[in-house]
């Protein structure tokens, strides 16, 4: 047991740091700093740089474009990425769909879909939740009926509504859970379909969230025709894919490196802000206690994640233990957001919308903190709510 980095690992850290410094797009940095909502091209800019370098999918198997990094190298990569405040690459294709495709897809499907995911040429969105199927995802009702069309080929005709589809307004394709056998038990009649979002019969409608942003959408499907070869894995066995995907979705969710960076930001704000007594807010007995407790919890989470990574390296994939990372990671993210908002006092109130830093009201660091906190309430809800995560641990780990 040791925490030392080898000379090779330190050299790797230098290489990563230099690469980010030399190659992070200046226009993207400027757009991030402006505080406005990013365009589709901006959201993909860093992804494309990384794809060209061969670093966009560290966790994939090497044969499909993974880097073959050790868990320690991946840890270094995420630390350096957070430290440099790079825009995280979108998870929908890379982290969520791709493992399903390379684990359950046919050779042809791998060839067809993985390159577009890797290069960032295709923007994917997720069609899982429905108005009546949230935590109880297996109760989903979107129906896919198999038909033989006039061209002699087989299709699914899909009808229903999906919701909470993140950034679906930009999506080229979506991965959907649909019901192919309405008579089977809920989890047994589901299939996993890939659907071209330009298909006739698809309508994407915005849902505006508390901070005023347009991030999530409703997706309506009205007699959408999907070729049968767009189904991953067997018909009626899509739940197997769905579960695997959710475990991958959870594992990155701890966000330790990013929380460490946000903690630094919080400390910097609390050093500038004054307490009622006139000293720095960070020297205020009540506030500093909350910061210290948060810092200690984050350290515990970091070492729990490191232990999980070490376990993964010895051959175990992300298992139900990743539910711990989801629960603790999101709790910590939310406490950070709360404390940052609390720290700026009066200047938590101004609603600047897309004006961002250009509004010049109050200190720059206060811009958008309330919005981040409002928006951040989603983290304990999505990816399987934290209560569902507790059910998973109770069942899968504790055997209750």
């Amino acid at each position, binding site marked *: 047991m040791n925490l030392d980095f080898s000379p090779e690992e330190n050299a790797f850290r230098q290489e990563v740091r230099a690469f980010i410094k030399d190659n992070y797009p200046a226009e993207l940095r400027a757009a991030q700093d402006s505080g406005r909502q990013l365009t589709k091209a901006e959201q993909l800019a860093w992804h494309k740089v990384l794809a060209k370098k061969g670093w966009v999918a560290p966790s994939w198997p090497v044969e499909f474009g993974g880097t073959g990094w050790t868990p320690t190298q991946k840890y270094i990569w995420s630390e350096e990425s957070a430290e440099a405040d790079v825009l995280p690459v979108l998870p929908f294709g890379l982290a969520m769909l791709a493992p399903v495709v390379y684990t359950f897809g046919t050779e042809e499907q791998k060839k067809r879909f993985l390159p577009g995911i890797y290069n960032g040429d295709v923007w994917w969105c997720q069609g899982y939740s429905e108005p009546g199927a949230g935590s109880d995802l297996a109760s989903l009702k979107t129906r896919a009926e198999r038909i033989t069309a006039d061209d002699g080929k087989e299709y699914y005709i899909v009808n229903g509504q999906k919701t909470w589809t993140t950034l679906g307004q930009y999506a080229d394709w979506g991965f959907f859970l649909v019901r192919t056998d309405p008579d089977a038990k809920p989890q047994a009649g589901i299939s996993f379909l890939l659907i071209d979002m330009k298909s006739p019969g698809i309508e994407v409608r915005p849902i505006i969230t508390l901070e005023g942003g347009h991030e999530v959408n409703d997706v309506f499907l009205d007699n959408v025709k999907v070729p049968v070869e767009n189904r991953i894995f067997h018909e009626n066995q899509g739940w197997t894919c769905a579960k695997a995907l959710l475990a991958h979705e959870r594992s990155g969710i701890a966000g330790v490196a990013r929380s460490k960076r946000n903690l630094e930001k919080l400390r910097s704000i609390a050093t500038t802000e004054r307490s009622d007594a006139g000293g720095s807010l960070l020297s205020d007995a009540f506030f*500093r206690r909350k910061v*210290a*407790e948060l*810092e200690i919890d984050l350290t515990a989470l970091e*070492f*729990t994640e*490191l232990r999980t990574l070490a376990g993964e390296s010895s051959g175990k994939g992300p298992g139900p233990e990743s539910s*711990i990372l989801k629960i603790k990671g999101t709790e910590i993210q939310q406490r950070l957001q709360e404390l940052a908002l609390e720290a700026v006092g009066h200047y938590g109130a101004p609603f600047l919308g897309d004006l961002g830093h250009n509004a010049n009201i109050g200190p720059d660091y206060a811009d958008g903190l309330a919005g981040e906190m409002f928006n951040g309430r989603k983290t304990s809800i999505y990816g399987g709510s934290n209560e569902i995560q507790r059910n998973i641990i109770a069942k899968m780990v*504790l*055997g209750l």
Partner: protein
Amino acid sequence: MDFSFTDEQSMLRDTVASYLADNYSFDQRRAMLGQEPGWSSAIWKAFAEELGILGAPFSEELGGLGGGPVENMIVMQEMGKALVVEPYLGTVVIAGGFLKHSGHPNAEALIGQIIAGEAIFAFAYAEPQGRYNLADLKTTAKKDGGSYVLNGMKAVVIGAPYATHLIVTARTDAGQRDASGISVFIVETSAPGITTRDYPTVDGFRASEVTFENVRVGAEALIGPENHALPLIEKVVDEAIAATCAEACGVLSKLHEGTLEYTRQRKQFGQPISAFQVLQHRMVDMFIQVEQAVSMTYMATIKLSDDKTRTKAAAAAKVQIGKACRFVGQNAIQMHGGMGVTNEMAIGHYFKRATMIESAFGSTDHHLARYERLSLGQAA
């Protein structure tokens, strides 16, 4: 970066675990605690001779197993699972730590006696007025020619009734709470002028109030630098904290497992109470606390060797473990219902130990304040 254990370390864990499973059951322990002297010299002898674990953290040149803090962690975790009262912490971790770090001329000989099971130590550092401040000392050691004369009183010295030696912190200079003017002495418990009031503790140990009245010791009793021993004391106490956190991990895992087992067999409303979601989620939260406690114990143990990060790591770990002890301990009792508050079941005994660990070497508040100073600077 590496979180795996070596084959030797895994073997050490198995050796301790299987010995304790055979010789330190809950009933065997209870019978032993119920009679004088309240500990087992036979068990201690077996630790030394059969298992060889009293040499776990000492180098092979000194006759030990060639380990370090990780070996202490492994042994303490297993001892936590069995609620062992024999003084591994005071003797191997604390006295061993002082001897290793001090470079004292007699260190090799005394470590040899520790490994052989002959020298048994208790750490006499706390005083009635001092709370958790290691520098708050009224006990004095006055130089008198070639010797020192000790006067004062030490509080709740765990393991003193069965110790052959005491490690005593005392003031050789400066004022009652000054950081300077502190020295450490090894004093044999049989030295003239020492009187003790011995008593059991709520969690099964034996302890003493120790009074020093003109206790004269030779110059060789001084370990570490005269007047400037506080950093040495802090270092060894951080090592003791890491070891206590490891013990807590063992205690916590038993509290959690015991609760799972009990709720599976206890039936109410026609079903095992483990089927109720409100209890399931509570047990998940306990599980998360146990896992986080283990993570922090690893962290603190690994960082012991680096003086720059050691203190903050130990404080952080003790905060985490203190909170875990309270949450896991109290919920274990709650879910055992009335049975939890009887003295019959093992669960209550783990709870009592967990509760005492909360304040061992400083409470959660103490270490949180210490962490704040180290990480955030002085308060206003």
